[in-house]
């Protein structure tokens, strides 16, 4: 077994990075990447691959890195995953591919995510991208939502010669990649450049287009004569905070906070006109990925204190451990096993504190946390808009779209990503992409079958 230690990528030092939005993890240099790739023992039965939702030929692309054949490595990765620079950064690898790597049994697993990122970044820097011969089929597809599910679906449809229009509600494409995940984890330049790859395939993205309002799904299939439709609208509807004081000034959802910063550049207010509305002492309720992203973003607006208030323990947090560690290093203060009882305000309705109850025997049970801003990250739900405006579209009780092989109850209308949900899977970028691609395959089959009849 290989004896060199797992290569660690350089990180910006916590003190510096807590004051800016630059990417925290610098990524491998070529030397580091080749050394890390050399740690892979090229298993006969590579378990890593079973851990990857899109079954990237991990063993294969890593081997090509050891040969310094980065072009070949890029081609190998992109057979299964169209956006290596994105997934290499945001996949919860420790739960997926890296959790399955045999090296992990005794020592540290191969750093598959960072290698994948290296392959994607190297390709981008050398202006390399996939090339495809596209033979038009004369069919048309509408993709609703430009998050990872919609983008992946559009990609595969376009490659197969379908003419694709993506409708996006916001003024920028990318979904959570654009408005949710912060710049210091996923630079927007990367999202933009991966979306530019779609341009080469002739995909058209229409921003400012809220389907259900501007056009209904019925319009798309009827008046606008698309042959197939894919719904990838995500599940971005924020759950409400059910404590007294939730409507006070200074209380906002993580989605609102992140959108004000990521999409509207509120951190650059007033050069950009949208204020963020965060104060000097900020509490984030919750401890999932969104909460951690919010806390770390909040920290970068240079307040005095940022707290994570979480009713369970560190171990129970669904967030990536690496991100929690980053947050701690940067100075986010964690209050575990702490429940929010109520938010209190001055007589003009501005938050001045949060009454909390600690379940820790050692701590004082009840205390007042002095904060002027409360950001709640309690998960999101299905947005009801499409279901409400699409008669005949079957959803479950909570409003998620029901599918069979990713086709909805309406023939020719498919769905994927967070708006559909599969028991036992996490809502991740790679899962959204994989459903987008599988839906694309189903759509092509559907188009084929229709042509024959």
């Amino acid at each position, binding site marked *: 077994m290989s004896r060199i230690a797992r290569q660690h990528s350089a990180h910006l030092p916590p003190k510096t990075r807590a004051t800016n939005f630059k990417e925290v993890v610098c990524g491998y240099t070529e030397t580091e990447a080749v050394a890390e790739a050399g740690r892979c023992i090229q298993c006969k039965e590579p378990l890593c691959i079973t851990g990857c939702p899109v079954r990237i030929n991990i063993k294969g692309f890593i081997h090509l890195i050891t040969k310094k054949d980065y072009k070949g490595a890029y081609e190998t990765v992109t057979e299964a995953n169209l956006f290596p620079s994105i997934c290499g950064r945001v996949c919860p690898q420790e739960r997926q591919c890296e959790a399955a790597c045999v090296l992990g049994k005794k020592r540290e697993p191969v750093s598959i995510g960072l290698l994948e990122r290296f392959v994607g970044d190297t390709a981008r820097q050398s202006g390399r991208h996939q090339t495809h011969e596209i033979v038009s089929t004369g069919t048309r597809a509408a993709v609703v939502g430009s998050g990872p599910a919609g983008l992946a679906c559009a990609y595969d449809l376009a490659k197969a010669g379908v003419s694709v229009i993506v409708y996006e509600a916001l003024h920028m494409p990318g979904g959570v990649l654009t408005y949710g995940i912060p710049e210091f984890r996923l630079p927007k330049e990367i999202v933009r450049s991966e979306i530019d790859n779609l341009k080469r395939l002739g995909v058209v993205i229409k921003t400012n287009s809220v389907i259900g*309002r501007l056009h209904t799904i019925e319009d798309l299939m009827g008046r606008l004569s698309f042959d197939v439709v894919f719904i990838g609208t995500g599940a971005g509807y*924020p759950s409400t905070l059910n404590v007294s004081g939730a409507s006070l000034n200074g209380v906002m959802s993580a989605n609102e906070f992140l959108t004000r910063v990521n999409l509207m550049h509120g951190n650059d207010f007033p*050069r950009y006109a949208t204020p963020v509305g965060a104060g000097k002492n900020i509490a984030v309720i919750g401890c999932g990925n969104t909460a951690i992203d919010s806390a770390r973003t909040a920290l970068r607006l240079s307040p005095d204190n940022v707290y994570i208030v979480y009713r369970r323990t560190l171990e129970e947090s669904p967030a990536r451990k690496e991100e929690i560690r980053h947050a701690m290093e940067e100075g986010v203060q964690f209050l575990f096993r702490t429940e929010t009882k109520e938010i209190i305000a001055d007589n003009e309705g501005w938050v001045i504190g949060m009454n909390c109850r600690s379940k820790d025997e050692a701590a004082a049970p009840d205390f007042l946390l002095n904060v002027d801003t409360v950001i709640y990250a309690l998960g999101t739900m299905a947005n009801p808009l499409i279901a409400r405006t699409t008669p005949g579209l079957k959803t479950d009780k909570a409003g998620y779209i029901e599918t069979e092989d990713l086709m909805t109850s309406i023939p020719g209308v498919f769905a994927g990503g967070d708006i559909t949900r599969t028991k036992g899977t996490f809502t991740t970028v790679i899962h959204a992409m994989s459903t987008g691609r599988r839906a694309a395959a189903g759509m092509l089959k559907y188009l084929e079958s229709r042509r024959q009849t």
Partner: protein
Amino acid sequence: MLALKCRVNVIIVTAMFEIIRVENFSPSTFLWEVIAPEIAQAARPGQFVIVRSDERSERIPLTIADFNTDEGTITLVIQAAGKSTDQMRAYRVGDSILDIVGPLGEPSEIENFGTVIVVGGGLGVAPVYPILRALKLHGCNTISIIGFRTKSLVFWEGRFRDYSDETIIVTDDGSYGQMGLVTQPLKEILAARHVDRVIAVGPLVMMRAAAETTRPFGVRTIVSINAIMVDGTGMCGSCRVNLAGEIKFACIDGPDMDGHLVNFDELIIRQRRFVKYEKQSIEMCKNRCQE
């Protein structure tokens, strides 16, 4: 102005929205007619759009005050209330708006309700007009009460008269029409005869007063919630409204809501969320926003 709008990216189709008519109603209130054929086609009374004038602008919700399917245009009536709406005053015919998204929100309920009073105050006068017109075309008996601060601010009187069986104009200072607030004639009419529905659009305090006026009469009262918004698609929760204890989002469940159920006090407080930042923005922009 166009120099800022440099996001030229072939695949991303954001049709720029050209202004073809500007009309000034007063120093602070003005009208834009904008080319937006798809929105005009889909728009229904009571719906709104969100406008982002240029790369650095806020997303500003504005009611669709009129739409013309033949010409492919929508009309917005804007009151300069703060920094962003103030900057919009600088736009001229031929200038273009970077982003307009819409129509958004649930359309207003339109049917022959019987006798309907339509109340518009301040910046609510224009938005209530398409609702009035639709109600009249559906056979309602319509009474409109529109309120302005003073005579020089009065606009669209003719349009309201065209679709109202009775039109009452009130001004705060009595310089035109009746003197006082819109709630006075509203109360008088409710006391005098049967009314089936009231629709009130304007500042929150005015809508709250209208709802309180109609409550004792038990007349269903619809208000249009102008909560602070960001995305307008149900994603951020900024526009949340407490409707008799239940949280609703004005951008997708509204903007029309039952005025007797809305918790206006909470909304009025939340309306001031950004006041201190707005001041800061105006101050700082005196010096450096031209960069």
